[in-house]
């Protein structure tokens, strides 16, 4: 018997996914307009993974992620206005313009940080779990990373230690088949990354990352296990990013075929959920419009915000 | 037509001259007769005129250069003319042939600038604040770098020196001998070393002669001085006592054909002795006139070399300075020199009575290799007689 993701929850999931997608799309447009700078890694296509896991978490639980973490930030309830402001490098940004896309964080909301270095969020997540364990706060840490991270040294170090210390961490691997331009088929020694958990004496499951219900249904037991103090779980969500690795990388062409891309398009999690939920066009439009309004308001806020003072560059180097 | 301006022979004895300074610059227009350069000999400075009008195209001998007689000093061209290669190479050849020594300090390597001097930053700062040029500080360190303690030491010594200066006479900075002084030093040293001097002093009663001179000068514009009289009488004496009008040359006493009396004149640069030629043939008035002229020229540094050459006997008078009597060193290659003291009132014994008289002392220095004391004494007696009894001059 599994967990069942009911319709109400699914509708909520739908809304959350749309919110992420429209946010990412807006971000893309802002980038092209030169208002947003740096490296932007959108998670369009992968929304179901973040949403599915976050549904299983509680408000006090915390998250860390890699460089593709905008969705995670939104799901932890970070303010869209200050997120956009941050991405536009403004003083009013959630990190005062000092972080940018790859290091977005808001500890007050439990978003403990996106990380710019592949896989380094994994031992940090173990450390977070370690603190939770010592404090006996009953929290869980969800750590998101990609298929590329699964080959880095610290992936193995982190899983090993999380396992032996039974740390309350749910490690979520978003396997979108490519680490930048390198495919898993050429770089990863196993087809299913989840298989590696055997080496670390911890459970690992493979889920359909394009199906939010599937993700949710695997996430719930993992989170509960962690909360019970039984240790970590690895959830490998098979998914696909619809855009390139980052802005400037085309959706297909250099290393992904159009066919492959089109095939995955058919499994678009948002579109499929629309069907599953039998949502009408009006309902869809309604939700989109609402989200769009929120986004536009946030963008306007960001665009009106001042840039930081030059002297701000010297703040917060030391506590 | 371009010409090479050459060092002229300004006197019989002159072998070379030193360029003191150019009054006109290279490339400047010059007029014939215009003074363009000052030459220094061992006796005198001489301002030279340009032989032609034109352009001072090239200065070959710069200030400080010693140029032999007839050596090239400059090239003067006509306006628009260029120095020909021929002339340039000729000049080059000549100047390289002669050993032109520059008496001026060599300017081949520049004096070490503050940049070249090794000093620690602290030392540099201290030196600057104390106004001490780094070149003057002596480094003690083996690596030659000036340090703080070197600056401090210099400052201490400087302080000591200035204290000494306060206590004693004011310390003058060093002054190199001018060429004139050098020559004077050289000759007088030579003279006092080689010629064994003996000194004969005689007192002369001047009352009568002073009165006569006073009378003469009242009616005449040309003021006849004691010196003029002495010159005349000395000349007469030398005619009588001709062995005093000689020079010793390689164990031979050479009797001069002329009697030319030099009068020692003190000028800023030192002592010069312009010569009155053949005063024996001149009247007192003529002697006075000549004497005045050459003294003026001497004081203005405008004497020609010829004015200084040919003297056979010298008179030096320090009476004006209140000197009672003194001895002089013979002016080589002369045989004798007369040193004249001041004329002043003194008590004298006459006919067993004490009277106030104007008295003057003269001291004759003679070269004992040539004459003896007795001979010199007779000469002095001769002069004394004629000074005291001027009618003997007639």
């Amino acid at each position, binding site marked *: 018997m599994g967990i069942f993701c009911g319709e109400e929850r699914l509708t909520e999931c739908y809304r959350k996914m749309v919110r992420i997608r429209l946010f990412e799309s807006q971000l893309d447009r802002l980038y092209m307009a030169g208002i947003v700078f740096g490296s932007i890694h959108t998670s369009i296509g992968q929304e179901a993974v973040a949403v599915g896991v976050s549904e299983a978490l509680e408000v006090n639980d*915390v998250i*860390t992620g890699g460089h593709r973490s905008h969705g995670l930030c939104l799901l932890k309830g970070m303010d869209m206005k200050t997120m956009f402001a941050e991405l536009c490098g403004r003083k009013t*940004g*959630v*990190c*005062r*313009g*000092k*972080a940018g896309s790859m*290091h977005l*964080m*808001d*500890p*007050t909301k439990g978003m*403990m*940080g996106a*990380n*710019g*270095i592949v896989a*380094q969020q*994994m*031992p*940090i*997540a*173990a*450390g*977070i*779990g*370690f*603190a*939770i*364990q*010592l*404090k006996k706060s009953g929290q869980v840490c969800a750590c998101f990373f990609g298929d590329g991270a699964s080959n880095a*040294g*610290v992936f193995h*170090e*982190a899983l*090993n*230690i999380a396992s*032996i*210390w039974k740390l309350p961490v749910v490690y979520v691997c978003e396997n979108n088949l490519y680490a930048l331009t390198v495919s898993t088929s050429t770089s990863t020694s196993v087809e299913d990354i989840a298989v590696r958990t055997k080496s670390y004496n911890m459970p690992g499951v493979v889920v359909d990352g394009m199906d939010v219900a599937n993700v949710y249904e695997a996430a719930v037991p993992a989170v509960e296990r962690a909360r019970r103090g039984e240790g970590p779980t690895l959830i490998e969500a098979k998914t696909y990013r619809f855009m390139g690795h980052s802005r400037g990388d085309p959706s297909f062409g250099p290393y992904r075929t159009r066919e492959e891309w089109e095939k995955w398009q058919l499994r678009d999690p948002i579109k499929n959920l629309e069907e599953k939920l039998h949502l009408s066009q009006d309902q869809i439009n309604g939700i989109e419009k609402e989200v769009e309004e929120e986004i536009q308001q946030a963008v306007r806020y960001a665009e009106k915000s001042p840039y930081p003072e030059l002297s701000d560059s010297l*703040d*917060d*180097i*030391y*506590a | 037509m371009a010409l090479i301006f050459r060092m002229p022979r300004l006197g019989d004895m002159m072998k070379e001259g030193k360029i003191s300074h150019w009054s006109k610059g290279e490339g400047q227009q010059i007029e014939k007769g215009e003074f363009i350069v000052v030459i220094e000999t061992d006796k005198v400075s001489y301002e030279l005129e340009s032989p032609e009008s034109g352009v001072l195209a090239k200065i070959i001998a710069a200030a400080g250069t010693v140029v032999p007689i007839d050596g090239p000093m400059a090239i003067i061209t006509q306006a628009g003319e260029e120095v020909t290669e021929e002339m340039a190479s000729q000049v080059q050849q000549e100047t390289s042939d002669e050993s032109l020594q520059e008496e001026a300090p060599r300017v081949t390597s520049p004096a070490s600038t503050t940049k070249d001097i090794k000093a*620690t*930053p*602290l*030392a*540099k*700062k201290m030196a600057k604040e104390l106004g001490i040029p780094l070149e003057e500080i002596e480094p*003690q*360190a*083996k690596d030659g770098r000036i*340090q*703080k*303690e070197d600056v401090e030491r210099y400052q201490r010594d400087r302080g000591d020196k200035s204290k000494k200066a306060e206590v004693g006479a004011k310390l003058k900075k060093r002054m190199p001998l001018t060429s004139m002084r050098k020559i004077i030093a050289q000759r007088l040293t030579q003279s006092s070393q080689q010629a064994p001097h003996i000194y004969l002093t005689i007192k002369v009663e001047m009352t009568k002669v002073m009165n006569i001179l006073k009378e003469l000068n009242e009616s005449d514009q040309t003021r006849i001085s004691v010196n003029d009289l002495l010159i005349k009488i000395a000349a007469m004496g030398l005619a009588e006592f001709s062995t005093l009008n000689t020079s010793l040359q390689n164990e031979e006493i050479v009797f001069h054909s002329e009697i030319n009396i030099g009068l020692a004149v003190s000028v800023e640069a030192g002592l010069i002795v312009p010569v009155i030629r053949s005063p024996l043939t001149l009247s007192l008035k003529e002697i006075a006139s000549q004497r005045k002229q050459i003294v003026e020229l001497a004081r203005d540094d405008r004497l020609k070399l010829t004015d200084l050459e040919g003297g056979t006997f010298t008179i030096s008078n320090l009476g004006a300075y209140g000197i009672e009597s003194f001895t002089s060193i013979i002016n080589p290659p002369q045989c004798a020199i007369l040193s004249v003291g001041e004329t002043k009132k003194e008590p004298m014994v006459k006919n067993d009575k004490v009277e106030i008289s104007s008295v003057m002392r003269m001291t004759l220095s003679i070269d004992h290799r040539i004459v003896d004391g007795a001979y010199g004494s007779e000469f002095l007696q001769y002069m004394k007689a004629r000074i005291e009894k001027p009618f003997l001059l007639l």
Partner: protein
Amino acid sequence: MHEITYAEALREAMREEMARDENVIAFGIDVVLGFLSGVTRGLIDEFGKDRVRDTPICEQSIIGLAVGASIMGMRPVPEIQFNDLITLCMDQIVNQAAKLRYMSGGNLSVPVTIRTCCGILGSGAAQHSQNLEAWFIHVPGLTVVAPSTPAEAKGLLKSSIRDNNPVLFFENKRLYTQKGQVPDDNYIIPLRKANIVKSGSDVTLISWGYMLQEVNAAAEFLQKEGIEAEIIDLRTLSPLDKRTMLDSVRKTNRVVIIEEGCRTGGVGAEVSAIIAEEALENLDAPIKRVAAMDTPIPFSPSLENYVLPNKETVLKAVREIMH
């Protein structure tokens, strides 16, 4: 005052801080037994196996654990057994610990104290004998500390643990067994402030860590020659206490910087640059650095000894600038 070794002093510091604040935790390889240095020995008995843990050999994750725990409010004191192994955790130190506060716009703190040890072991050879503190002064956000005596070690470790910044604490192998007087009371020594060990007027000797031993010995010799050295123990290598070092140089006009690490790009280079920039006109001699030769540390004892700086090389350097 009581006389204890440098390692014992560090243990006292750990005990006192762990007793004072339950968020202070210690972990690393061989930490439970405190096998190498003895610093963490016995702590588990007092504070339990949750707060004192052995980890697998995973240096990057040891620091990762510390970073993660610290942003959740703990005060971790992870140990990297030899500073030569710090190469394995560079990302967590440089990209994570040093920068999280800055990137969070001040919303996060990383109060981690990474204990490690530097210096020679006695034929430890190239991979276990280095002094790598210079690398970390180049990373803004990190505080680098190097104690020189037992009393210094205790006071500075306590301050480091209490400090809200990530601190790299470089203990020195040769000092672990050195004995020294340590105050009885609960004291701390402030970070970011150098210590004038001995006053003098003739030459400033700047050093830290083990080399203070050699510097002190050299200073005694110099005193017999009539040279009064002023000895400065930097204590914190980054951020540097510029004021103390510059005041000293302005007084003595001569300076030698002595370090155990190798010369090129050492901490001495940074100190020299600061002095040259800000006190040039006070220098009555070139700035001198005494350091290990630019070689990996050789195995054979005579070679090891040769390439390292000691009292003699200190004396030589001083004499070169004293005339």
